[in-house]
């Protein structure tokens, strides 16, 4: 059973069971390891990707749902070797500890800033409320996303 879709602008066709989680396909079949497995239950956001522009948990999205659609992972947010403004702001502010939650947060925050370049603190907090961070870095991350606004708008 093959499923065609695009990942980070590239056409791919994957041979896998249609109910295989998209996260497994990304990590195991396509070698895109940036989306992290945190819960496999759609509850933590570590695996967030964009599916036709919407932020979804890849662990809770069966492959068949991606058919013919456009998937963007953390690897596809910027040109290879470049940091997205959200990532750069996180690095500038050292807004991470173990970093395991960060990929999904970056995908979510970057999508928010695409849609709403002037998002304020309340918007950022509301969007990121779907992401868990156990290390307790939430406030630094919010500050970083706010700092990334101008950079994101110009990118």
């Amino acid at each position, binding site marked *: 059973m093959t499923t065609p879709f695009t990942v980070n602008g590239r056409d791919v066709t994957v041979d896998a069971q249609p109910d295989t989680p998209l996260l497994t396909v990304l990590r*195991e079949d396509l070698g895109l390891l*940036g989306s992290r497995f945190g*819960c496999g239950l759609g509850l933590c956001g570590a695996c967030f990707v964009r599916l036709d522009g919407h932020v979804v948990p890849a662990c809770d999205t069966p492959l068949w749902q991606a058919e013919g659609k456009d998937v963007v992972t953390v690897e596809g947010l910027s040109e290879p070797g470049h940091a997205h403004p959200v990532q750069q702001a996180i690095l500038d502010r*050292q807004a991470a500890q173990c970093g*395991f939650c960060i990929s999904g947060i970056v995908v979510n925050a970057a999508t928010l800033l695409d849609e709403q370049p002037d998002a304020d603190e309340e918007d950022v907090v509301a969007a990121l409320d779907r992401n868990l961070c*156990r290390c307790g870095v*939430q*406030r630094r991350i919010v500050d970083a996303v706010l700092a990334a606004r101008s950079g994101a708008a110009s990118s």
Partner: protein
Amino acid sequence: MTTTEPLRTVDVPPHVADNPRLGQWISFPDDLSPDAVGVRIGKVELGQGIVTALAQVAADALALPVAQVRMLNAHTGLGPDEGLTAGSLSMVQAGPALRYVGAVVRDLVARVADDHPGASFVDVARTLDPATDLATWEPRTDQPPVRRVVGTDLPRLDLPDKVLGRPRYLADLRPAGLRYGRALRPPSFGATLVDVDAAKVEGLQLVRDGSFVGVVAATEAEADAALVRLREATTWDERDLLPDEHDLTTFLKAGPHDDIPVLDEPDAPAPTHTATYTRPFLAHASIAPSCGLARWSDDGTTVHVWSHSQGIHNLRAAIATSLGLDAAAVTVEHVENAGCYGHNAADDAAFDAVLLARSVPGTAVQVRWSRRDELAWGPLASAMVADLSATLAGGRVTGWRHDVWSQGHSSRPGYGGGTPGLLAGQHRADPDPSPAAGDPPPDRGGGTTRNAVPIYDVGPRSIAGHRLSASPLRTSAMRALGAYLNVFAIECFMDELAEQAGTDPVDFRLAHLADERARAVIERARDGSGWGTPLPDETGRGIGFARYKDRGAWCAVVAEVTVDHEVRVRRLTIAVDVGLAVSPDGVRNQIEGGATQATSWTTRERVRFDRRRVTSDDWETYPILRFSEAPLVDVHVIDRPDQPSLGAGEAAQGPTAAAIANAVHAALGVRVRDLPLTADAVVRAIEQAE
């Protein structure tokens, strides 16, 4: 040449004495750039930034720019054994070792530099004999000590990979021929495997050893599907073993106990005030499930393990003991994973991988736990109860008693005199013993009684711990161990006494406190928090303070809390003294994270269980703090460049809990003494007070 002075004015640091070969610390692997020095330490990165901080120490010790220092993975075969990465001791232990190693290297290089005209420091360092005995070398140097990057905010070396979504974690390793393993945990604690229906598992590559059972498959998708089939094929014998989750105080006080006498000073007057404080079982709740990777040699005699364990040498010994192997047959290499905050399932997952990989010698097998297993089967942090009493006379405390009941706080690999302590080992046909958890010894801060002795001048004290010597619930170390509850209890109790004495809680503490560094952090937190200024309705401020483990960092927290339908922590103002802050922003980050995590423990976390199993096994049943609930955290680091560096990762938890509860009292006028401070707990406390 100026006068040279032997550097050995102090003893050889213990970690150098234990690991005296130069090559254990300094090496030059093939993939190292020609101008770099490889530094291998035994401490590991858990997300706390320690490897970067120690790279700073190493760079200054070697008098090299930090870009020329490459930190190498901890490895049982190649690197030093520095014990556990735990207890906020990494900088205390590894810092002096690296300074010493660096001094010897600089000295050795200086001595032979003339034989290598035109060669760089690194070129000469490459010629040194890795077998050089550091402990007997009398290092001498005429070069002044260097302080270039210590004390500055160097960006974390590991973060670019993690933030840019590159492979970096253990689950991202893809050795050639990798296979995927899954262990099927029993349906409940103490359950034994009765039968596996052969027809239902036909075609699966099964590994069974007693009640340990698992599968190995070529892909992750196949492994997950195989696990589902295996679960349906198994029959188990289950029993009711767990206590009543609604009456943990009775369970903890029932015993049997090992008593831990701490202090029993004579002539305490009769107490005038008593109170009881409790906390529930808590989960480490790492954001990543634990992971292990193992590959046996083709002949099945040796095994290489990749693990995110906090103690790779202990893990290696535990694996060898459980399997009856020589320790030399086991190699463990550290690879990073998400934060663990103590002894989580990292070691257990590694052992699962070892057991499953044994069925396919020569092939690497990765085991990743499920979220549900991580929350239900990882070691828990123990529930605790503390009874406090004190005498108040003329506005001063003149006697103090503290009794605390708990399960042990350590069942790490090797505990209890060499017990492997690996989950699967308890389920094998020839099971490992599994005694109740113990505690670190008193000279390492203890566990149940950690921070049970008040720092205040309170007259004669009687302090004792009572640790359960048997329990069906597996507990082990989580950040701050018993200090979280003991500090919560002491600091809430001080607030209650201040209220009885009619004194401001900050003034009351200062009046009982001689330690200057303690006073300084309390005053700084007070001044930074707007203490005493008016607040909106239903909002209060509270303070909490402790010196972690009585010998670690000093930390004071002022919490500002609003109580409407629930407890909302709006802001935390924190002052901390960690001596020399090697990386001041790293200290702030650790304190912010520790305090935010403690806010989560304090306001919502509680492991739930029925009589057989943990039922809080996902993020809905074990909710943790979300972005919308995270407080603003304002950290003031009191830098003391002339004082030894102390760890920051565990300083804030107890003070934060107490500050929040004291703020709830300031807001509502009610004392909530049972954690977590949920709406239910607040309502219960109000009812009890009426």
